[in-house]
Each structure stands twice: as C-alpha cells, then as structure tokens.
C-alpha cells in the first residue's frame, strides 16, 4: 500500500485476507466434521456396506433397528450410564470444591492431586482399575482381609457389576475436572451471605442447601449437561474394563460400541452403522437441549 493510498482509505485488510486466515480452520471443520456428518445422514438411508451396496432403502435401517435386540441393549446401557453417572458427578465435585475452597496450608497440593485422574487417559485409568478390580486384585484382597466377603466379588465378569464398576471409574476420573469448574463458580459466591446465615444459626447442611446451591445452580446445570452428554457417548471405560468384549455375551455393549462393532471390518454395514450414529446424534442433542431448557425454566420461576 503506498502512502497516498493509505491516506485516502485506512483499510483494515484486503478482501481475501479474512478468508486466508480462516482457511485452515474451515477446511478442517467443514471437511472433517460437517461433511462427514452430512455423509452419515445420507448413508443412514442406504444399505451401504464396506463391500458394495449403497442403494437408497428409505427407512429400512430404522425399522431394522426397532427389531434389533442388540440396539435396545445398547440404548439401555448408554441411558443407564447417564442416569447412574450424572447425579454423583453433579453433587460430589461440588462437595469436593467446598472442601478445597478455603486457603489452608497445603491446599494447592491437594487440588493438584485430586486433578491427577483427569490428566491420565481413559485407557490408562481403565487398565489401572481392571487390575484393581480383578478377582485377585487389590480391592478384593482388601475386602477379604476385612472379612466383608468370602468369595471374590466378580466386578468385571458380572453383567451388572461391570456396568456399575465402569460408572464408578467414570465418576472417579471426572471428579477433579468438575471440581475445578465449581471452584470458579464458588469464587463468585459472596462470603457475607454465608456468614450472615451462620450468625442466624444455620447449620452446615442448611447453609449448603439455601446459600451454596442456589448460588451455583446454573453451574450445576452446566455440569449436568456436560456429564450427561459425555456419559451417553461412553465407550472406553466399558470397552477396557470388559477386556474389549462388552461384557458377558455383549450384555454391556453401549451405543458407541455397537456403532463401531457394526461399521468396522470387512463385513462392516455402513448404512446401518450410520443410522445408529444418527440416533446417537439426535439423542445427544436432545439431552443437551433438555438440560438447557431445565435451566431456562428455573430462571423464569
């Protein structure tokens, strides 16, 4: 730009400049997220397979789904996962945040230590707990030493115990993350309110219910939304703890495990797998909208 030109119009940038800045980001987001999504949408209505196929079949994949017991098992497990994991993940990290909120000596160390499971990958965490919960693992040895059980508890081989164990692992790994989210919210809660309530003789429980909870309610909804969406998409915990099998007879298979199982390999049924993916997407979005609506409804009260 010459001196004269710039004096006439001080322009921030040329016409193409913004698009050059956006190019890498847009290529990735459109190419590897939005386009595959549209493709999934289309494949869901075809009989595409890894080897051949690909003609339009209308809603056939979805009618097949209704009659597929595997689908219902997977849907049940993923839904149970949301129900089992969300309440503890909304409540426990809040209590933990209250525990580490006060600046007492050594608190930074505790906060850091409580966050450690968040940093480790789910595979590492899953393998650690596979060993802990083994029939001859630490948890069973301790339970036997304490005389609480005489036979090892089949944490990883019983259909229901396996699902519950996986939920506990999810909660264990998520505690520190949501603790930090709550700490940020608690920093804005006025101490005066707490002290006033204490002066009025309100006990710790009463103060928690009538001062702390209302103050962090929108954060609780956020945590519920985040953990619900993540829980519905559960894969690694169940996959690793079950030794990749999905539990006895595949009874603990989740929706994401089923999508992978159906779609991958030489006999992969891409159409059906895409239809399952679409169901996953719609239900995830529904969960998100439902929790957000919950927040709005409470706001207008």
């Amino acid at each position, binding site marked *: 730009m010459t*001196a004269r030109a*710039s004096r006439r119009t*001080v322009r*921030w940038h040329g*016409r193409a*400049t*913004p*698009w050059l*800045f*956006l190019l*890498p*980001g*847009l290529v*990735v*987001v*459109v190419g*590897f*997220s*939005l386009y*595959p*999504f549209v*493709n*999934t949408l289309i*494949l869901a209505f075809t009989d595409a397979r890894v080897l051949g196929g690909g003609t339009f079949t209308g809603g056939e994949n979805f009618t097949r789904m209704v009659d597929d017991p595997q689908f219902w098992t997977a849907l049940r497990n993923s839904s149970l996962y949301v129900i089992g994991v969300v309440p503890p993940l909304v409540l426990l990290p809040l209590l933990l945040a209250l*525990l580490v909120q006060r600046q007492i000596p050594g608190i930074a160390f*505790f906060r*850091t*230590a*409580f*966050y*450690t499971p968040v*940093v*480790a*990958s*789910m*595979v*590492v965490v899953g*393998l*650690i*707990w*596979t*060993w802990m919960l083994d029939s001859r693992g630490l948890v069973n*040895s301790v339970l036997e030493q304490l005389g609480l059980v005489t036979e090892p508890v089949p944490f990883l081989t019983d259909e229901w115990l396996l699902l519950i164990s996986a939920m506990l692992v999810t909660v264990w790994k998520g505690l520190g993350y*949501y603790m930090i*989210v709550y700490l940020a919210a608690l920093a804005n809660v006025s101490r005066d309110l707490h002290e006033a309530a204490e002066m009025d003789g309100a006990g710790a429980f009463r103060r928690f219910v009538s001062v702390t909870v209302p103050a962090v309610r929108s954060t609780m909804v*956020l945590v519920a939304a985040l953990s619900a*969406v993540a829980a519905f*998409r559960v*894969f690694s915990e169940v996959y*690793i703890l079950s030794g*990749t099998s999905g539990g006895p007879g595949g009874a603990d298979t989740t929706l994401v495990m089923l*999508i*992978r199982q159906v779609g*991958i390999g030489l006999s992969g049924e891409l159409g059906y797998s895409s239809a399952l*993916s*679409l169901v*996953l*997407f719609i239900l*995830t979005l529904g969960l*998100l909208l439902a929790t957000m609506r919950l927040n709005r409804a409470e706001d207008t009260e």
Partner: protein
Amino acid sequence: MKRTLRYLLLVAVLLLCIGPFLWQLSTSLKGVGEDIYSNPPRLFPAEPTVTNYTRVADVVPVWRFAFNSLLVAVANVLLNCVGAAMAGYALARLRFRGRRAALGAFVLSLLVPGEAIMISLFLMMRSLSLDDTLVAVVLPGAVAALNVLLMRNAFARQSRAVEEAALIDGATTWQRFSRIAVPSAGGTLAVVAILSFMFSWDDFLWPLIVLRNPENYTLTIGLNYLQGTFASDQRLVAAGTIIAVAPLLALFICLQRYFFRGAGEGAVKG
C-alpha cells in the same frame, strides 16, 4: 478441631485419587519372582526393579508407540495453535461478508459428536488412502472448533488501540496479527496448546478405528493391544501404563495453572 476434620477428609480423598496410580507403580516395580497376588497385599515391592520396563519393550515396541504418540501430539499442538489463532483473529477482528456464517460453521461442528461421524470419517480416510497412517489420526482434530472460539474470545477482549496505531503506521494484517495480537494472547494460546496435547495424547477411539498396523500404534492403542496379548502378566501392563501416563503427569505438574484454566474455560465455552 474443625480443621483437623478437614485435613482427615482431604487425606482420605487423596488416597482415593492417587492410590490406584501408586498401586500400579508398585506393581510395575515388582520382580518376576515376587507374588503380585499375595493376600494380604504387599503395598511396596520387596526388591524394587525396573526390569519390567525393559521386558515390556521386548514384547511390544512400546518406545515406538510413545514416539508415535509424541509425533501426533506435537503436530496436533502446532496445527491447533496456528489454525485456531488465525481463525479466531479473523472472527474477532476482521470485518467481512460471511463472518456470521463462518462463526456458525465452528459452532455447528461443536454440536456434532465425534462418535457420530467416526464411521463416515473412516470411509473418507480410506478414499484418501490415508487409513492406517498417523496423518489420519491428526487430521480430524487438527483445528478444533472449541480452540477457535477460545482464541476468538481472547482476541475480542484485547484493546484495539495498539492495532489501530500500527495500522496507521502501515502494518499489514499479518503483521498486526503476528506481532501485536498473538503475543498478548499468550495465556489463552498456552491453554489451547495444553488442551490439544492432552486430548491428542489421551485419544483412544479414533486411533483404534483408523490404525491397523502395530507399527503405527499410539500409546493408548498399544496399551490396549498389550493388555489383550499379555494380560497374564500384570507387571508388564503396569509398566506400560506408567510409561504412558508419566509424560503427561510431568507436564501437568509443571504447568498446572494452564490445565486448571483450560478446565474452566473449556467447560464454559463447550
């Protein structure tokens, strides 16, 4: 008295949170001769040894896995920092037709769960002949929408004054971006780098789908493979998990400030 109770609770949670890691470490240091199933359990190895770490490298190429993981993570960090900063800057600072549409594309992609498009992504990688390569592992997360929005907010918070002065002095858009805007967004850029590294190092499902040849395995996939093949020897699996988790723990301990900030910002924006 109240404070004592608080510390007791803190120590109890501490044991619950890092106890399992320490037990894994202890198992990895127990020699082949030591009974790892002893009851009552032995918390500390009788004769600590690192032979499991060399043995695990004999049964699977664990250092190769670690190298692949590092390669993927470094690429992911670089691409995310550059791509997200550039896109974030355009969205926050530049005025142009189509800006809302561009922003919409990023927000929309936040709503699409990776699990719902993985089959379609796999097909894409195959038709690009990229399946079973590390490039395919990196590409889908190369510029994460969340990072773009984080950078956009960071740039939007900055004052325009310095950039306007530079503009009068004839600085180009790229110069204003790289010399003024980016250096003052260092904190958020560090958060983006940390989040990208952690996400990539810990990612499991997508590499599991796209990688076949053990030569190309990342650590998470490699550990799954190790567990499947040598589950009988928990000492080896334990050594493998320690190798996988140690670098990230070291990073976390050095840079915890940014990890915590990432958790706060990532949650609110996600």
